[in-house]
């Protein structure tokens, strides 16, 4: 039989391709991909369309005969009030459209149907439907104060130019002692999405490796597999196949997010976002290589899915702690905690990309972090391979690490 291979060196690829395709066709995978895409779309769309731009309000002002009601402004006074409302809105970076309302309803219907945000009456009351936006309350307050000051100054004989100089003095100039990153806000948003993706991907795919190992143990197919190939080949193939799926999914999600952001204009810095997507992919590969063999060992120690949670707790805590440190690093990427976390192998994959996107990591730190991570991965894999080999054929009770170590040759 000439076409039967005399070596088994490439057999891990056969394992990897099975693990890749079986999961790619899995319904759960499709669903989780769709959920991730939906969450990211929401984030991008909110940034693109929600909350952005100048806030604008609709304000009603009660106008009528002051003899009839204390609530209404005299038509002769209302022009000045409107002018002050709009000046106050400009000063606060908002836009207020004013509509005159009259007795007897003084705009109650418009308040109820939402076409007015609030109605200002001459007796210094501001009426809303169930609440009034804080910014609008502030603007109205400012406007009434300005109106009094202007009236007082005019009574003292000040000219309109003098009144204007008092009320509209230029805004205080804003400076920093260190150079300010004009893209800081956008970068933080990109880094935040990046961490979320990395955390979800590293943990999710790590758990997938562990459940894949348990699936083979609990169905007992592992004994057949290991009569054909070696434990390390099985472990390597499983990690490679699942990792490849993780990369493909990440690339797909990142491509989708970048395209959506470009179309909607949510990001004004496509180059930064593209760079961040590349970073997420690279750090996923580095981080997954580090964590995956640990997840594989965790899976090999138990025989049933129900027991998986127990062995995952320590790994889960480490990854979760790294995640929260990285979220903290968004605010302060140069804190000691953030720097240390970005260098240590077990947290670097989450903490370092944040600091790189925010421009806080020095090239030396990046080099050190990558060296430590790759180095410890290379140390970890043979250890994990041995533990996995020693544990994967033992069914029943949870295998102790020490026994797994001794059982392996």
């Amino acid at each position: 039989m000439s076409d039967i291979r005399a070596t088994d060196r490439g057999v891990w690829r056969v394992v990897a391709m099975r693990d890749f395709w079986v999961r790619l066709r899995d319904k759960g995978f499709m669903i989780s991909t769709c959920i991730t895409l939906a969450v990211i779309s929401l984030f991008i769309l909110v940034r693109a369309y929600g909350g952005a731009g100048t806030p604008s309000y609709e304000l009603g002002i009660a106008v009528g005969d002051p003899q009839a009601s204390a609530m209404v402004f005299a038509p002769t006074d209302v022009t000045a009030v409107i002018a002050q409302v709009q000046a106050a809105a400009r000063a606060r970076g908002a836009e207020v459209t004013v509509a005159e309302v009259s007795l007897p309803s003084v705009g109650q219907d418009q308040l109820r149907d939402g076409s007015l945000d609030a109605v200002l009456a001459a007796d210094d009351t501001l009426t809303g439907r169930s609440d009034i936006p804080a910014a609008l309350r502030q603007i109205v307050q400012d406007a009434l104060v300005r109106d009094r000051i202007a009236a007082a100054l005019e009574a003292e004989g000040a000219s309109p130019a003098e009144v204007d100089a008092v009320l509209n003095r230029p805004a205080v100039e804003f400076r920093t002692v260190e150079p300010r990153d004009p893209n800081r806000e956008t970068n933080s948003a990109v880094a935040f999405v990046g961490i979320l993706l990395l955390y979800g991907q590293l943990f999710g795919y790590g758990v997938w490796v562990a459940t894949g190992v348990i699936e083979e143990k609990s169905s007992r197919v592992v004994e057949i597999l290991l009569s054909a190939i070696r434990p390390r080949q099985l472990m390597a193939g499983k990690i490679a196949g699942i990792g490849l799926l993780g990369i493909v999914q990440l690339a797909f999600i990142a491509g989708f997010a970048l395209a959506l952001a470009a179309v909607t204009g949510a990001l004004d810095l496509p180059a930064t976002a593209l760079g961040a997507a590349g970073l997420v992919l690279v750090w996923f590969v580095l981080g997954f290589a580090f964590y995956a063999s640990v997840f594989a060992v965790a899976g090999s120690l138990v025989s049933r899915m129900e027991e998986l949670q127990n062995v995952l707790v320590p790994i889960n805590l480490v990854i979760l702690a790294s995640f929260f440190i990285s979220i903290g690093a968004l605010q302060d990427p140069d804190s000691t905690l953030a720097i240390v976390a970005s260098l240590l192998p077990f947290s670097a994959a989450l903490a370092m990309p944040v600091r790189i996107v925010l421009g806080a990591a020095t090239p030396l730190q990046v080099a050190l972090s990558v060296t430590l991570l790759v180095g410890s991965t290379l140390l970890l894999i043979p250890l994990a391979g041995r533990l996995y080999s020693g544990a994967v054929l033992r069914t029943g009770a949870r295998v102790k690490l020490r026994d797994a170590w001794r059982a392996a040759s």
Partner: protein
Amino acid sequence: MLELIGLRRSFDDVVALDDVTFSVPEGAIVGFVGPNGAGKTTAMRIALGVLAPDAGEVRWQGKPVDAIARRRFGYMPEERGLYPKMKVREQLVYLARLHGLPADHAARRADEIVETMGVQERAGDRVESLSLGNQQRVQLAAALVHEPDALVLDEPFSGLDPVGVDVLAGVLRRQAQNHGVPVVFSSHQLDLVERICDAVALIDHGRIVASGTIDELRGSRARRLLRVEVSGAVDGWYDALPGVTLESEANGGVVLLLEEGVDEQRVLDLARASGDVLHFTRVRPSLAELFREVVSA
């Protein structure tokens, strides 16, 4: 030839295998029999490299077996296992590829083996949706799909219906006779072992207590028994011959135990002298009887 030489293995304080040695020649079918817990599964797992021996070695074609050689073995473990959610054919192609077959060859072999095992209609179904009997057939297909150089099967016949038993027996015979594959399988169905196997290895408490062809076992172990039916003879007609004692009485005849050196023809002469001989045969002990005799000894 597949050889197990001096295998020893303990689990904690329990000795599972104690110097187990036997061989399976090319083209021979060897039945591996013994009581529950005697060490059959442990020996087979060691042969496949799934378990490491404390001492001893497994040799294939005269050389210590390595991973490359083992890859060409076919194995059916005691605890059956397949991917429950994978389709039958897909799974067989995958296993064939793990055993080193290229993709197209693996696909061809998977199609052949599902047909041989009579599960071709279920080839597109998930394993978990099959009946236990059909799962067993797929399990056997998994051991055979890569045209193995040697076959090690742990209880391959258990769970098969009579048709399945015949199919498998035929497959094993073809593997051995046409392809020269050494086949060893364990079983408690001793009549089956007697029918199919060229030789047996009998294990008890981790030791091989007997091995060889079934006739050799009979020759070395079994007592010589004759069943004789004589019409018109008085009770105890055989007492006249020294070295002949009554073993049992059945159906109007007697079963006589002959000591060593007693000539069967002398018994026949005496029987003819005592009356009309209606029946005179050697009692050939079945494998089951040999088994009981050896194991209780």
